[in-house]
């Protein structure tokens, strides 16, 4: 891109809709008419909870991040409430915040901590995810279900996949059946099939959005914009139809912006990627770097479904295709539906977390897809799952010609060890060493 070039930029139309949907989600988790659980989409890749008449799920990560983002004194108080009861200082900040709030009995605005009735820790290679369910159940006796994130090295192996897939389906099947039995609510299989179709549509939109962000110069959307909405329908669970409509709206707007060269950052000169959640408590650095014309395109984490693009040896861009069940696969029983919903692979084909574990050099493919010039890789003292193999990824990126820096902090949901002044100084040096200057200078 030509140095000093300027593009038109304008506010995002989907912004207000996103705010409205998030407000609706907040109301839903405070509802007394629903069975509220703590957990995630466990190993089903769609919003399974909506197939029950009145079940909703809260996920610790966005709740803990928001606590730290909105109210630093409260988040510190919550973590202290955890620590005095024996929880380590080095545990994930999301959990330290949420569990502390549970002990305190209220959240940062003074309202009561939303009561949970069950807990399902998300299966994940991250140890902290695997351990997170127990606190809720220790605090107040409630059902807990577990599953595994299944990992092996080497090529896809059908023989190894078979028992692993059965394990995955069994765990998911048991959760649904037990929930029916315990909460007396009927799981609606037809509704479930519809949810799966909707989820597939959303995945297509999110892939398209990733592609447009990555391949358009100037990028129509920065990750800062994406982070403002990207939990909608995923970690922030809302009505499934509203989810599909919202993401269609986002896709349409991003596409229009790309076609009309409407930039997220009007002076885009430098594109960089990250490798994991940012400091949710200090998002200012994105805007700070924009003064240098630097735009953050996100990470394998923020792009989820879109992180499986690759740059092929002939220079073409393509998706790594996951093994899937045929579209017309018959789904007559609950087991069929859960089997299809669990996916055709026991070991994920790649993407966030799996790549760091077994395909550490794929971050280079991601950077090439994003047409990135540099990488800003956070390393978190209290976030093993957010930091694993990061140093090695930095080496691969440097070898591929990217300009890489690290910064250090406690964890994306824990502000304790982040030195903001030092971070900004580092960023100035990073930018200036590449000949970039702030637009204000």
């Amino acid at each position, binding site marked *: 891109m030509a140095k000093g070039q300027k593009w038109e930029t304008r506010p995002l139309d989907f912004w207000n809709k996103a705010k409205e949907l998030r407000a609706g989600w907040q109301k839903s988790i405070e509802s007394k008419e629903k069975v509220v659980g703590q957990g995630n989409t466990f190993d089903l890749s769609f919003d399974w909870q909506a197939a029950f008449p009145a079940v909703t799920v809260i996920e610790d990560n966005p709740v803990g991040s928001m606590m730290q983002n909105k109210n630093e004194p409260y988040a510190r108080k919550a973590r202290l409430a955890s620590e005095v009861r024996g929880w380590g200082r080095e545990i994930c900040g999301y959990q330290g915040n949420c569990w502390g709030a549970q002990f305190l009995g209220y959240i940062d605005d003074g309202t009561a901590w939303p009561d949970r009735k069950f807990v399902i820790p998300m299966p994940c290679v991250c140890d*902290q995810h695997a*351990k997170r369910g127990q606190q809720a159940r220790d605090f107040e006796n409630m059902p807990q279900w*577990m599953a595994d994130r299944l990992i092996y090295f080497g090529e896809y192996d059908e023989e190894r996949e078979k028992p692993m897939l059965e*394990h995955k389906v069994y765990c998911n099947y*048991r959760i649904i059946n037990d929930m029916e039995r315990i909460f007396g609510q009927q799981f609606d299989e037809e509704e479930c099939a519809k949810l799966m179709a909707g989820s597939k549509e959303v995945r297509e939109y999110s892939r398209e959005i990733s592609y447009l962000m990555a391949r358009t110069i100037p990028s129509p959307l920065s990750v800062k914009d994406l982070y403002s909405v990207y939990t909608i329908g995923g970690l922030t669970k809302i009505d499934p139809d509203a989810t599909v409509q919202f993401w269609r709206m986002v896709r349409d707007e991003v596409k229009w912006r790309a076609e009309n060269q409407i930039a997220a950052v009007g002076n885009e000169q430098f594109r960089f990627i990250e490798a994991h959640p940012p400091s949710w408590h200090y998002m200012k650095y994105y805007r700070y770097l924009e003064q240098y014309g630097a735009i953050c395109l996100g990470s394998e984490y923020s792009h989820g479904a879109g992180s499986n693009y690759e740059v092929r040896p002939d220079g073409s861009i393509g998706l790594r295709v996951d093994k899937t069940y045929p579209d017309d696969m018959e789904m007559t029983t609950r087991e069929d539906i859960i089997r299809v919903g669990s996916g055709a692979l026991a070991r994920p084909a790649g993407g966030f977390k799996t790549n760091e574990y077994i395909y550490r050099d794929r971050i280079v493919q991601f950077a090439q897809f994003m047409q990135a010039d540099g990488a800003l890789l956070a390393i978190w003292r209290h976030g093993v799952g957010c930091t*694993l*193999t*990061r140093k090695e990824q930095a*080496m691969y990126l440097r070898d591929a010609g990217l300009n890489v820096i690290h910064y250090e902090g406690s964890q994306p949901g824990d502000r304790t060890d982040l030195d903001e002044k030092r971070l900004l100084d580092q960023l100035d040096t990073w930018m200036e060493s590449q000949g970039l200057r702030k637009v204000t200078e």
Partner: protein
Amino acid sequence: MDFKALVENRHEYAKAWKAKTGGKVLGWYEPYFPEEIAYAAGILPVRILARHYPDDVSDKWIYACCYPVRDMVNQFLKGRYDYVDGLVNVEGCQWMYNSWEVAVNNNPKLWNHYLFLPDHTDAPTSKTVLRSELNVMKGLMEEWTGKKITDEDLDRSIEIHNKNRLLLKQISEMRRMDRPLIHGAEMMQIVLASQLMDKAEMNEILEKFIPELEARKPGEDRIRLMLIGSETWDTELEEMVEAMGGDIVVDELDNGTSYYWNNIIPQKDRLMAIGLRYLGRPKNPIKDNNWRRRPQHIFELAEDYNVDGALIVKQIYCHLHGTDNYAVWKILRERYIPYHFFERDTTLPIEDTRLRLESFMNMLKPGLTHLAGWHKAYGE
């Protein structure tokens, strides 16, 4: 027998074993590694232990606040484990995984394997997954060594390992005496040595050692302590406790009692039998993520070994023990077992630790009836 020397001379031992047998040495990281299969293939499985040496190489490769794993990387990059032919990691602590993969990446000649052992150990399907993964590992080991692992090989290996665990437990039982014949430091050295030596040879040593042990005279009354928390790599802490009039009479460490607590129950399907032993062993924090079994196990050990108090010693920045501590504190408080918690690193800050231990042990002393000769009522 000087077990401490066996641990300290572990590199020389493994090198000598290789020279004598021409066999392969396999390093392992996680205590959930089923050594039985490697041993059946004629391999010497050795536990990779952390030792701190000046480190100017690991930082480039790994960001881990957990120093033992960096110390392991340091040792590999500096060539201290140059006799190791292969490395295996079992699904468990993520920092340990990072340490393993850096060592492997830096030495492409190393045979390597990642064994998936479900974190959710309780599902009926967990055992079939593990059995399948053990079968894969067995096949890869056969390919690597060029030796077919027969049922007879597995039976022999299971027998040797079961015997080793039984002998260790037999010694451990002697710590239940009012005045144990063996103290915590020596016991831990024996357990560590068992993770480094040829098991058959170790069994012979232990069989000779047990009568010697039984012939010892009981020493003086000591404050009976339990050690809970992160794995240990040496016996500095146990020695310090002993120097101050205490004794670690039992531990709940992953590479302490948990290493030998349960045996393999033989069955026709040998791999299933091995898998069930590892799924059913005393849980470490990462494998105890469904129902909390670990706190109850800790309590039972404390009761059985009649402890006066517990030391919870956590590796600094160990996220897994950091997530379990709450439940451990809770059960000890509920059962009125005094405890002292502190964090340590690969190295032990001597004066700081000594002061903490002294305060804790002084606090315990006034209430201890056995220190006033109470045991004598039983004619000991």
